[in-house]
């Protein structure tokens, strides 16, 4: 980072903290001011919440703001908007669209959600079948999306639809920002095997979207979707937890609390501890080398490694608990969860089963590592050049 840029960032942060003292400024007002000063997404151009700098400047800004007593809770409250939606708008939206959406997104006054996955399009997102048909200055949407976080709280949804079923699958899609409060949008909780509903199903029944809400060209939906997914990977990665934290920390705690001393279970615990630590050190190494621009381990090994590890560790923790591992203290209440933190062991065992599915199944991650990183050849594709309507779908 050049010294000038650093100085400019520091000065603006100091200015913000001075003008809007965090302890006496309402959060929304503070975040609005932060946006206006270009301290929301430092790499955005000026006027879009940024300063035309680099992503890593934002890390510094966030650290200094936190030290200065400011809240960055908006980033969690509107995770999908701030981490992914902003990137999509920055890359693909018109000036008017940015103007309309970015600021209330950053202040978390308007929550965003993502509408990609469908019952028939999981790993194969590009196979989606939610239809949007043009009707004058509007589009009429019908279909179903699943695994939508925050949909029940969201004002806006990032929606990919099929607009040309006769084009090959990657070409006939169009991307919209849909008003989640519009008529014909039905959000229902999607209960998981834990008994909780972190996610939703969203049904579109003749929902009308103004053409003004379209992002990029008609037929360019896949390109925009890829931008979204790229930002998702950036958002999911990063941030190094301390040693022996997370579920391996929980397992160690259970080991100690139960006073267990079976050497066989101890060796299993140490095995998991070692694997978890190796994965954690790899994240650290990847982060350092990536930010120094030096080739290093592929970040995407992390998602795969943690999916495996979380599943193994939480299952092992039940073994450590013995008969207590057959209990489910929270019960199956079929509710929306009130927190997203670490779960007690038996709920953690259930919840982590999805770690190898959500955000890209482990099978897809292995394909990616094999093909994009190691350069192994792809499978023969039977769906790629066919018109979407002709692709076999069971």
């Amino acid at each position, binding site marked *: 980072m050049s010294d000038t840029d650093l100085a400019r960032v520091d000065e603006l942060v100091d200015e913000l903290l001075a003008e809007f003292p965090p302890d006496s400024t309402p959060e929304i007002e503070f975040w609005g001011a932060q946006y206006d000063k270009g301290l929301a997404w430092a790499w955005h151009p000026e006027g879009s919440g940024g300063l035309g700098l680099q992503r890593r400047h934002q890390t510094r800004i966030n650290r200094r703001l936190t030290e200065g007593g400011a809240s960055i809770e908006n980033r969690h409250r509107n995770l999908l908007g701030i981490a992914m939606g902003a990137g999509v708008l920055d890359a693909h939206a018109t000036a008017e669209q940015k103007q309309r959406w970015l600021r209330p997104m950053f202040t978390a006054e308007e929550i965003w959600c993502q509408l990609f996955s469908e019952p028939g399009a999981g*790993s194969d997102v590009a196979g989606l079948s939610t239809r949007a048909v043009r009707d004058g200055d509007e589009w009429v949407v019908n279909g179903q999306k699943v695994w939508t976080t925050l949909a029940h709280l969201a004002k806006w949804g990032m929606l990919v639809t099929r607009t040309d079923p006769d084009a090959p699958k990657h070409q006939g899609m169009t991307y919209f920002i849909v008003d989640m409060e519009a008529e014909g949008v039905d959000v229902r909780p999607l209960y998981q*095997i834990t008994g909780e509903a972190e996610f939703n199903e969203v049904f579109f029944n003749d929902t009308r979207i103004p053409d003004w809400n379209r992002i990029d060209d008609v037929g360019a939906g896949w390109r925009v979707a890829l931008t979204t997914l790229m930002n998702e990977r950036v958002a999911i990665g990063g941030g190094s937890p301390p040693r022996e934290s997370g579920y391996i920390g929980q397992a160690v705690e259970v080991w100690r609390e139960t006073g267990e001393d079976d050497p066989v279970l101890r060796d299993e615990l140490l095995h998991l501890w070692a694997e978890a630590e190796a994965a954690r050190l790899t994240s650290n190494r990847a982060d350092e080398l990536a930010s120094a621009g030096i080739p290093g381990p592929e970040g995407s090994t992390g998602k795969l490694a943690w999916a495996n590890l979380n599943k193994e560790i939480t299952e092992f923790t039940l073994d450590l608990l*013995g*008969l*207590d591992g057959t209990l489910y203290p929270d019960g199956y209440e079929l509710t929306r969860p009130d927190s997203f933190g670490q779960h007690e062991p038996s709920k953690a065992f259930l919840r982590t089963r999805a770690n190898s599915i959500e955000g890209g199944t482990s099978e897809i991650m292995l394909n990616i590592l094999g093909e994009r990183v190691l350069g192994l050849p792809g499978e023969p594709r039977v769906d790629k050049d066919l018109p979407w309507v002709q692709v076999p779908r069971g």
Partner: protein
Amino acid sequence: MAETRVSYTPTEDQELIRSTARQFLTERFDIETVRDLIMSDEGFDRTHYKEMADLGWTGLAIAEEHGGAGLGSVEMGVLLEEMGRLLTPGPFFASAVLATSVVTEVGTTDDHARILPRLATGELIATVGLFDTARGWSLHPEHTMVARHGGKWTLTGTKRAVLDAGMVDLVLVTAAEGDKVVLFAVDPNASGVTITPESVLDTTRRQSTVEFDGVVLTEEDRVGQGDTTPGLVRAHRLATVALAAEQVGGAQAAMDMAVEYAKSRYQFGRPIGSYQSIKHRCANMLMKVEHARSTAYYGARVSQDDDELAVAAPLAGSVCSEAFTWIAGENIQVHGGIGFTWEHDAHLYLKRAKASSLLLGSPRYQRDLLGRAIGI
């Protein structure tokens, strides 16, 4: 190292039990009924139990002189395999397998005459409190004990993970009396008995913590004489083999579900079962389910041979527990997102699998028993 030669060819009796069971269970326990029972407070419907009794199932392994069918572990295994397929909820395992084995193996002739006929008819539903602590699966009670005062005993202690205790008529309880382990049949409504239903991972099989706070018992309540440990050990092995059969049924059902989905689910224009990642996983499921089945079948077939059962029971217990848990977990993965939803049935098998792998001893614990039996 010796082994016992057994035959795996099913007898006509066994074929009949299997087809009757499959038909009855499929009709009575369609998945909607199972789901209703799972979410209900009691967790089962006593009329279902009566029907099973009428089919002769509750008395299947009870001698004819006590009103049972006089059949053995193999036939019970066939029945439990079918129940395992459909996750049949209720206290059948607790009463007709666990409690029945314990009374049979521990009880005197008088005890048999007193208790078995009522278990056989299904009028009596019983369970067993075996474990004082969550870990170790020791059959020697660490904390539960009886003290004798004249002709009476006072029972004090707490039993963990007592299956279906909230719905039974009788709780069999092990307790230490000095160095000996004694067994009592306790009325769940007796003074000093507190039954606390627990919130459980696998809601197809309920559990309670049962506390005994100075429960007064008489000689009438006692089951067995002298140290009951040898009988308890045998009953534990028989129950392990029976549970293994149930696990095999569950594993088979979970595998069938995965294979079916792999054929019908298309991604990228191909059935997902055409990808080696899924195909090979299903093939490994097949291998594991067949291995598990072999150990469960073998265990049931040597149940009369004490030395061989000592090997075969923990073998089946460890192999079937691991196979079922792995298959049920991978079934969810094969299904992807839909397999993680409450409305899909995949999770019911995973919960049954994981819980059942811990009920009578973890695979690691069962392997320890195996090692003792084979001298390793």
